[in-house]
């Protein structure tokens, strides 16, 4: 359990470092306000005159620096410390927007020109990815991967939880490693066609690594989770996570979130199924359907239930 705790702390530190502020002295904050406006907060009060002049603001979407958005109106807040810019058309919040604030004048003094980028909260984006991979793109009920282990392990709850945790840990470490190898070695050298073999190798390596460390550091935990480590190697869900990361070109933190989300989703699925399997083992299921067929149909019902998450986006 300690390993998990440290991992979570590490991730949190990473996330906090990964968050970006505007990095500007005078402009404090900028964010998407409603569907057609952006709010900018300043450190000091700005002049009315300046704020009313629409030409002082140049806004464009990052990939299209040549196309300026048409500003309909600019509103200065009563305390003069923030400005809301309204646009003629709804803005596309998925793309970062670049803002150029020309010669900001505050109390008659010029604060110079500021370039800022407004984008969705990075942390929110990461949480979004985590939740999406866990629920909306659940590795078993929506992606249909790792079924062998899922059906084999989910008969006992303790085993299911053990397997889920082991899977999450291995997927976390392996995807970090795989991300570096893929982005820094395979892509620059144009040898990404051997990704399968590399990924399989790296996963085995991670498993060996976790195995060794766990054996030394926490023998009790090893006794509990050790047997599942071997199973993780030959699990298609385990291989699918790095393949998905590679296919979508995620950055490091996003990859970590995908791997965690995938692992937790796997854990969730195993847990739910194990709860259900315990009940199924007591049910008078028709003899032809006993065992695997019932488990399959139950999984199908789970899939129907998980369709409720489809189309979900948190932030």
């Amino acid at each position, binding site marked *: 359990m300690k390993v998990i705790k440290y991992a979570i702390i590490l991730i949190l530190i990473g996330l906090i470092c990964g968050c970006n502020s505007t990095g500007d002295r005078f402009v404090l904050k900028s964010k998407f306000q409603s569907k057609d406006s952006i709010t900018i907060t300043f450190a000091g009060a700005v002049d009315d005159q300046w704020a009313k002049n629409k030409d002082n603001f140049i806004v464009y979407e990052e990939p299209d620096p040549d196309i300026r958005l048409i500003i309909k109106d600019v509103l200065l807040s009563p305390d003069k410390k923030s400005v809301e810019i309204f646009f003629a058309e709804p803005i596309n919040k998925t793309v970062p927007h670049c803002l150029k604030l020309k010669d900001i004048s505050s109390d008659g003094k010029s604060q110079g020109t500021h370039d800022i980028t407004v984008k969705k909260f990075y942390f929110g984006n990461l949480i979004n990815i985590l939740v999406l991979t866990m629920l909306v793109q659940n590795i078993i009920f929506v992606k249909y991967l790792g079924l062998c282990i899922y059906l084999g392990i989910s008969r006992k709850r303790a085993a299911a939880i053990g397997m889920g945790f082991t899977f999450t840990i291995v997927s976390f470490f392996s995807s970090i490693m795989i991300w570096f190898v893929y982005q820094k070695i395979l892509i620059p050298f144009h040898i990404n066609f051997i990704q399968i073999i590399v990924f399989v190798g790296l996963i085995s390596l991670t498993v060996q690594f976790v195995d060794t460390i766990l054996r030394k550091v926490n023998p009790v935990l090893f006794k509990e989770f050790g047997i599942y480590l071997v199973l993780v190697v030959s699990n298609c869900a385990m291989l699918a996570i790095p393949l998905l990361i590679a296919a979508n070109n995620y950055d490091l933190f996003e990859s970590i979130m995908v791997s965690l989300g995938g692992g937790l989703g796997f854990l969730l699925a195993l847990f739910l199924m194990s709860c259900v399997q315990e009940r199924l083992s*007591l049910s*008078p299921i028709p003899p032809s359907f006993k065992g695997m067929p019932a488990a399959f149909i139950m999984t199908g019902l789970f899939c129907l239930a998980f369709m409720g998450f489809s189309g979900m986006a948190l932030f």
Partner: protein
Amino acid sequence: MKTTVLNIAKLLTFQKGGINPPEKMRLTKNLPIEVMPTPPEVAIFLKQHVGTACLEHCIRADMCLHFVRQPTDNACKIVFKGLQNTLYSEDYFLNDNICFNSSEVHVQQEEKVSEGDLIGKGSKLGSNLHASISGLVKTISDTPHPFGKEPAIVLSIDPDAKPKSYPIVNENWMSLSREDLFAKIKEAGIVGLGGAGIPIDSKLSVKRDSKLDTLILNSESEPYLTSNYRIMLEHAFEIIEGAKILLTILDIKECIIGVENNKPDAIIALNQAIENDTQKNGSKNQFKIVVQPLQTKYPQDATDQITFTLTGRIKPTGKRISASGVNIQNVYTAKVIYDAVVCHKPFYEKVITVSGRGIARPANLLVKIGTRLRDIVDYLGGMTQDVAKIVIGGPMLGFAVSSLEIPITKTTPGVLFLTQDEIDIQPSYDPCIRCGFCLQACPMGLEPNNVSIYVEAGKSADTEQFGIMEDCFECGCCAYVCPSKRPLVQFIKLAKLKILEAQQKKKQRESKPKESKQREST
């Protein structure tokens, strides 16, 4: 006075669970105790009580009477049908284990005995048996019993013998020592009249614990049964005196009599008796006896429940109730003890409730131990046409019988002749719908639904995790509330049996390797 009793806002009761079945006391509530004429023949079982020593025997014998039990001469066919298949089926031979804690025969065939004579001597956990009628020992043979057949002493009446009377001979029992009192009670062959019928001497001779500080007198809380109520009403004085004897023997001062508030008259009567007693004895009185009205709820009279209700103590799992510092007796036991000590009267006749719509004339009867049901039915004018079930005991805990040849024992609190609409017999039961009614009803906080589901799935041995072996006393609350009409008590009994079997197997397996090892070493 009556109103004050009923107006107590929050009456004491136990922690959780319990049910409120229709009381059905009106049938016999207002009928005074009636002495039944001596029957021509009585059969007195050598074993008068259920006893806890042979749990397996009891479970096995009572478990599976689900729909049909066919008693043959000395075996019964036990069949328990599940929804899908037969869960349990066994030909059970009753002669196997029946000789536990029974009494030794003290008479010979054709010997002449008179009322009150010792005919069986209690050994170990058995109690003394006394002739309930004057006459001849006709035979000592197997007689129908709720569980099949058991050996009994059959006496046939001597028509000329006069009924024996027991005048008060020993009013000043206070002067007797504890040991003398104890011996007198033992001599009289009294058993606990609450349920299991353990001989009173073993109940009282539990290791003298310094913790023991309270005597609890309880009364029946099952529907229909009114014998306790009538005793309290008509023999309140004797009960108080009996309680005092018990207190002397136990060497404690405090006694609480718990009476449910559906018997307000009994509460008044007992209070009156206590008042009289204090007036009479004045400052001499060193005992503290109180009557505590209780909320009407089944199973208010169960050991754990009444202890909690009256003292707030909870019995730890797996320990005897004396660990909680209480001794529990039935009010009727107190009355019988009074008879034995003050009148030297052995325990050979008792008050039972004969009730139900299936009998022509319900009554509270004073009958001789060993009286056959047939004689009672005849005396009360026969059964109605639509009688569907004859139950010895209360409707919640009693045993259904299939023959009128069965005699009354010392533990029989009543006989019920129930009609079809009273028992509402279902031809089959339905699957568990997990409504959770039984979880709410179980006074011990167990999970009867899960036990039944496990048993149905053929995993009876796995039900040990639900704690039925330690805690379940088969009060029947779960089966009473079950909307699927599942025979939950039978399920639990079957599970207990299987757990016992599994434990025995485990023991055998454990002992075998040891033996083999020993063999190897030798």
